[in-house]
C-alpha cells in the first residue's frame, strides 16, 4: 500500500483529525484552564479562553481544605495494591485456563465476568456489616481487597488472552529443562507475558483509581483515596467552578499522566484478544 500520499490529502486528514481530537479533549483542557482562573473569570460570558489572569490560588485553596497528598497516596496504594494482589491470584488461574483448559473454562470465565455486573448498591449494606465485624472499615487493606475482587475477573481475562498467545511448547521446554511449575511460571511464563501483564496492570490501576462507589462507602479518612477528595466538591456553596476545576485537575492528573506515558502498552492491553 505504499503508494505516495499526496500532501493535500495528508493535510486534510491532519486538520480533520486534530479538530476531532481537540473537540474530544476539550472538556479536559477547559477544566485545566478553568482551574487557573478566578471564580469570576470562570463563569465569565463570553468565556475567557486564554486571556485571563492566571492564578494558582484555587490550588492553594483546595490544598488547604483537604490533605490532597494523603488522598493521593491512598489512591496509589489502593489501586496499585489491589492490582498487584489481583495479579498474584490471577496469574496461576490464567495459566491453568490458558494451558490446561477444561471443557467449562469458557463458561467459568464468563461467570467470573458476570460477577462484575452485580449492582454494588444492592450488596453495600451486607458488605458494610461484614466489614464492620472484621474491623476493615476505613482500612487500606479492606478497600484494597474489595477492589481486587472487583477487578479480578478483568485481570484474569486479560491475562488469559495474553497467555493463550504464548506457545505451549515454550512451557513444555521449560518442563523438559527441569523447571518445576512455580519456576515455569516465574522464569518463563511471567517474563514472556510482561507486555501483557504491564497493560493489565495499567488498565486495572486506572479502573481502581477511578472506582467511586466502594471507595466512597467503605473508607472514611485514613484510607480515603481521591474519589473521596473529589466528593467534597460536587456542590459546595457559592461560586465553585474554578475550585472544582482545580480539584478535578488534581484528581485526574496523576492517572492522566500515567495513562499518556503508558499509552502504547495500554492500547495493546485493551484489546482483550480482539485483535489477532
Amino acid at each position, binding site marked *: 500500500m505504499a503508494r505516495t500520499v499526496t500532501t493535500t490529502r495528508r493535510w486534510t486528514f491532519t486538520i480533520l483529525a486534530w479538530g476531532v481530537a481537540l473537540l474530544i479533549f476539550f472538556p479536559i483542557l477547559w*477544566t485545566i484552564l478553568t482551574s487557573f482562573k478566578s471564580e469570576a473569570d470562570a463563569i465569565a460570558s463570553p468565556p475567557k479562553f486564554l486571556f485571563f489572569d492566571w492564578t494558582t490560588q484555587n490550588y492553594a485553596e483546595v490544598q488547604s481544605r483537604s490533605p490532597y497528598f494523603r488522598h493521593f497516596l491512598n489512591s496509589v496504594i489502593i489501586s496499585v495494591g489491589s492490582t498487584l494482589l489481583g495479579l498474584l491470584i490471577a496469574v*496461576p488461574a490464567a495459566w491453568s485456563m490458558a494451558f490446561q483448559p477444561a471443557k467449562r473454562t469458557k463458561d467459568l470465565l464468563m461467570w467470573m465476568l458476570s460477577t462484575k455486573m452485580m449492582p454494588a448498591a444492592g450488596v453495600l449494606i451486607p458488605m458494610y456489616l461484614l466489614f464492620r465485624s472484621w474491623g476493615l472499615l476505613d482500612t487500606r487493606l479492606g478497600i484494597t481487597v474489595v477492589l481486587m475482587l472487583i477487578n479480578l475477573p478483568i485481570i484474569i481475562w486479560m491475562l488469559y488472552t495474553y497467555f493463550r498467545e504464548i506457545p505451549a511448547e515454550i512451557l513444555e521446554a521449560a518442563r523438559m529443562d527441569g523447571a518445576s511449575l512455580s519456576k515455569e511460571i516465574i522464569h518463563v511464563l511471567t517474563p514472556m507475558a510482561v507486555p501483557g501483564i504491564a497493560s493489565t496492570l495499567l488498565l486495572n490501576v486506572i479502573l481502581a483509581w477511578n472506582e467511586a462507589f466502594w471507595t466512597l462507602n467503605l473508607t472514611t479518612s485514613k484510607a480515603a483515596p481521591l474519589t473521596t477528595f473529589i466528593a467534597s466538591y460536587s456542590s459546595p456553596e457559592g461560586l465553585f467552578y474554578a475550585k*472544582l476545576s482545580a480539584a478535578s485537575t488534581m484528581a485526574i492528573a496523576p492517572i492522566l499522566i500515567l495513562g499518556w506515558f503508558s499509552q502504547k502498552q495500554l492500547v495493546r492491553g485493551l484489546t482483550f484478544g480482539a485483535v489477532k
Partner: protein
Amino acid sequence: MATRHQKTLARFMVAPSVLLLLGWMIVPLAMTLWFSFQSYNLLSPGMEQFIGWTNYRYFLSDPAFWTAMQNTLLLVGGVLVVTVGGGILLALLLDQPMFGQGIVRILVIAPFFIMPTVSALVWKNMFMNPVNGLFAWLAKAIGAQPIDFLAQYPLMSIIMIVSWQWLPFATLILLTAMQSLDSEQMEAAEMDGAGAWAKFTHLVLPHLSRAITVVILIETIFLLSVFAEILVTTNGGPGYQSTNLTYLVYSQALLQFDVGGASAGGIVAVILANIVAIFLMRMIGKTLE
C-alpha cells in the same frame, strides 16, 4: 497437552480465584437474599421481621422499576451505538496518513482516564449548565435559546457524557483492529476492483466484527452499572427519566435505607445481569473462538 499431574495442578491453581469470587458473590448475595425477605429499614432498627415476597412485590410494582429497566437498556444501547459507530468513524480517520498522529491519539484517549465523578461534574457544571455552561453560551452566541440538557433531555445527556468517556476505548480497540487488517487482503481487493466503500463494507467491517464484539462485551459490563454519572448530574430525575436499575437500587438502599427493598432489587438486578451475561456469552462464544 498434559499429564494428569499437570491437570491436577491446574485445578489447584484456579481454585483461589474461583473461591474468592465465589465468596465475593455468595456471601453478600446470601445475606442480600436473606434481607430481601425481611422488612429491614436501617432507620427503624428493631422492626426486622420476615415478610415473604413483599419486598419483591413492592420493587417490581414500583412504577420506577419499568422505567428504570427501559432506561437501563436505552442507556446501554445508546452508548453502545454512539461509541461503536463513532469509534469506527474515528478509527477510520485516525488510520489515515497525517502529521502528529501520536499526539492525536493521546488527546483522544484522555477521557478514558477521567474519574466518572469528575467527568460528570465537569460536564454538568461547565458545559450543560443552562446559564453559565459553555453550551448555553454557544447557543446564545448563535442566537438560540440555551437548552437545559439535564432537565429536558436527561437520559440523552447522560448517554452523551458516558459516551464521551467510552468513545476512546472503542476507538482505540477498533483502530488497533483496523491496523491489524492484512494489507495483502486490501491489495487483493484493490486488484479485484473494489472501491473505498466496497473495501469498507466487505473487508474492514467484517474484519472488525470480533473487535466490535469485545467492545460490546466490555462496555456492557461497565455500562450496566453506570451510577456516578447519574448521581452527580440528575439524581435519576426529573421524575424517573434518568433512573436506571443500578440507581434505583442505590436509591432504595442509600436514600431510603430500605435494606429489604434494596436487597430485593439487588437480587432482581443480579438475575437480569445473569440473563445479559448468558446472552453475551452466546454472542462472544461465537466470535471469540
